[in-house]
């Protein structure tokens, strides 16, 4: 499977931008890891993963991202969508989702986090960066 190949179905550009900003807010940029989250290691792999589950899965993520973007107007008193917030406010907004008393809000946050982490930590450079080499583990006992 070519990790660089585009998915046949894509998120809309606006949704891709929101996803990119969420990933950047969530994951370390060159702090302990060799690379930062970007289109190649987060957005394209997520599109490809969800395409396998059918068009509706990707549409569902798209709607979640739009909701995530505009819910900032309700959950944070800044009157700005998520992507227009300052970096500290973005973090505060993410933390608000994580610690929400509304279970489905927490669950949606976890879904987003799971998707982003799953694809980011599947990147070969990131795996190497954290010392994960399953090939080596398989070979060592042969």
């Amino acid at each position, binding site marked *: 499977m070519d990790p660089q190949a585009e998915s046949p179905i894509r998120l809309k550009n606006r949704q891709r931008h929101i996803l990119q900003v969420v990933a950047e807010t969530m994951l370390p940029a060159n702090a302990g890891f060799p690379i930062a989250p970007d289109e190649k290691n987060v957005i394209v792999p997520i599109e490809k993963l969800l395409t396998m589950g059918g068009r509706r899965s990707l549409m569902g993520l798209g709607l979640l991202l739009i909701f995530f973007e505009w819910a900032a107007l309700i959950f944070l008193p800044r009157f700005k969508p998520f992507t227009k917030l300052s970096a500290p406010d973005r973090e505060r907004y993410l933390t608000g989702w994580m610690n929400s008393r509304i279970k*489905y809000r927490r669950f949606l946050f*976890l879904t987003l986090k799971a998707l982003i982490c799953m694809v980011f930590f599947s990147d070969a450079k990131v795996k190497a960066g954290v010392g994960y080499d399953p090939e080596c583990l398989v070979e060592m006992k042969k």
Partner: protein
Amino acid sequence: MIHDPLNLPEKIQIEADVCVIGSGAGGAVTAAVLAESGRKVVVIEEGGYYTRKDFNRDVLDMTKMMYRKTATTMTFGNVPVPLPLGATVGGTTTINSGTMFKTPPKVLKEWEWTYGVTDATPERLAPYFDRVEEMLDVQPVREEILGQNSKMIRQGAEILGLSHGPLRRNASLQCTGCGVCCFGCPTDGKRPMHLTYIPRAVSFGAEIYPNCMVTEILVRGRRAEGVKGIFNKPNSAGHAPTMEVRAKVVVLSAGTIYSPAILIRQKLCNSSGQVGLNLTIHPAGRVGAMFDEPIYGWKGVPQGYYVDEYAGEGIMLEGAHGPPALMAVSVPGAGKEFKERISEITNYADFGVMVSDTGKGRVRAPGKYAQPVMLYNMTNEDARRMVKGMALTSAIFLAAGAREVYPGIGNYPTIRSAKDVQKLRETKLSPADLEVGAFHPLGTCRMGENPQRSVVNSYLKAHDMDNLYIIDGSPFPSSLGVNPQESIMAFAHRSAEYIANFEFK
């Protein structure tokens, strides 16, 4: 023979003695035993056929390839519960951790007393368990592949004086502890169905058809006359082949979610009204911990150790770790806090808490082609026991030297001391507060001798049909409290012998 859809004609029509739907723990064993007894067996499997050469150890690729709906299946109710299922030859046995437990005697007793299940005592089942264990090389995890994650739990459990030990798995000496059991074993060390019972069935003449989705069980009166299916992969001419198998006996082994879905769509076997009801899932939570030294939790068998101190209360602690792509989401936090912790992911340990559930759910099949919907409500009692298990796991991690412990509870503070553990133990939480997953759906076609209260009899034959058997996790009438694959295999062995002896006299 295992058929590649590429080489199949557009229309396949076969006559067989037995048609088995599904090739997981139930279907594969049934197929092997019946083929060995001289019957012509056809197995239809919705998933593809993959082997070691296909298993590239990449979480993403393997999730797409072998998990149903790329592992996005889940239950809905008072707490959303992800419930990943396998869709490949070998079923979930290909992508599980390989943990093996016999059915606890007290559970068998409960089935006898409460549901009227007969001839399923520990003594009666013992020879079947023995045969399964011999076939699958079942043995405790060896010290050299245990991994630091399990060793930390062992150290903590020893300090606290708890009952603990290495888990027994269907893994041979070839297992290198490379930590990707749930994504297809790349060394063939784990012994799932596609390496054991399926080859055995094939060696006795069984025909396996992967990538074939069942569209209909052909029925006349009280008899199942065969199965119709369509392939989800085209042949060399670019067409999706269709299939019709005429069989004397039909065995439904599509798993706890899909077996009832097939029956509900066709309004079969449901005079009791119990098809699709009584879903139990073994809700499972997790507890993470950060140590000062590297753990490299992905090195070693991910589910290699257990603590059964509270097993009598239906609480089991079992190993739960894996590659960083799987574990990163378990590291708590968002933003700066998460970034700091995730940069120490090598020092992160994780262990699971599973409860034998008292809650019940149901499977609904809304339309002919729609996916089944799973509804499940976790009870407050199960939530209480889950928290008790999490508190014990937290205490074990602290005893082993963890700097910080993170129970899998939404919005719960980090645990750093015995006082914090005590506070967690005393905290009353509702199911909605917990982060829950599940891996063992059971119960949706429950067995028993009363046709008004059960779907199949004690030999897993449908009460409403003369020649339809349901052999997977769905007949188990209550939660086991332990991983169910060995129980499914043993019951399949027993039922297959019954079919061989009584359906083909």
